């Protein structure tokens, strides 16, 4: 099976920032991303959980974005201002994708 090099960017960020992150991704010309729900977690600001919560004020989402390696830098640069001051973790992993014509 023909595979192509790609990067898997995983942004774990506050749920309230969803719109901002999406806007940045779209402006950076990212062709697609997927948002996963997050149940809870822990960090410097302590433990949290979504159980029983009504508002979005606390809690994170995970945004997964597969992109061509050449586009990584512009994506991260666009993402950086959104992350400043906000709670969030960004990891970039080397991966391989099928059907690269999509990216």
């Amino acid at each position: 099976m023909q595979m192509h090099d790609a990067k898997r960017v995983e942004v774990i960020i506050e749920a309230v920032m969803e719109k901002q992150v999406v806007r940045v991704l779209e402006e950076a010309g990212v062709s697609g991303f997927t948002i996963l729900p997050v149940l809870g977690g822990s960090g410097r600001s302590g433990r949290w959980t979504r159980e029983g919560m009504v508002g979005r004020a606390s809690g994170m989402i995970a945004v997964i974005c597969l992109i061509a390696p050449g586009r990584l830098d512009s994506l991260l640069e666009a993402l950086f201002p959104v992350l400043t001051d906000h709670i969030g973790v960004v990891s970039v992993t080397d991966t391989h994708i099928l059907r690269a014509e999509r990216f």
Partner: protein
Amino acid sequence: MDQILSLAGQNLLSPVILFFVLGVAASLARSDLTFPEAIAKGMSLYLLFAIGFKGGASVSQHGADLSLGLAVVVGVVLSFVLPFVAFALLRILARGVSVTDAAAVAGHYGSISIVTFVAATSLLTAGGIAHEGYMVAVAAAMEAPAIVSALWLAVRGGAGGKMDKDLWREILLNGSIVLLLGAFAIGWITGERGMAEVAPFIVAPFKGVLCLFLLDMGIVAGRELRKAGRVVTPGVVAFGLVMPLVGAAFGLAAGLGLGLSAGGVAVMMTLSASASYIAVPAAMRVALPKANPALYLTLALGITFPFNLTLGIPLYMAISQTLAGG
């Protein structure tokens, strides 16, 4: 005084309050009793739907006049003004609190807590005391303006904060405002006929849902208290107990000035005394990310909300009964 105590006692022994206490206790004891997020959100949608609709239906029944518009305007003004009061009070009572944190907290106290509103109206209804149906619209109108004041306070204090078009839209078209006002409008338009259709869903079972919802709120409040730790200095606690009284005083003046019924004055006091814990915290995370959520959530949800729920509301009711006849 006797009346206050008896009202407070009666309130403290109502199922609604006892379920809140159960939730706090379960949470502090680290029980794994929790509600799924979807159920908590579903209950809150139900409550907004029900109180919006009931408010509108009541306006359609009693007719609306200028007083509705006036009350809404006064509510907006209160929501703009109260953050300044809260900001000043917090800076006096808790000197360690930064400008950013104080501005964020101030925004919460200018805005309102819809469940506190519901608890007050339930208690009024149980006591046979009428209030203006349009107070729901006033509640909706008071949600957002405080956010603007909070950001202004932060910017002025050099603490940054940003307010763009999107944030504006988000605040004004916030789901809870839209549902509350939408249901209010539909209740108003469809009046008695509409009420007859939905009453078995929104009237009789209301109290039961409220009990479950407050159980959930208690669990969440208890969690907040458990985490509170370092941020809760004596000064902060004092603010969380004094600010509702100060807010209530403003609400009292506004309610008397508007010539509201005793019930309406009590509601106005409750709205002014209550602190947002859904809409404003979310807005603050976006616009004032440097403010510490542990501080404002502990205050709004862990201190002021329980205070209003248990002692505040009966007090506001007693005062309004005394001063606005009844």
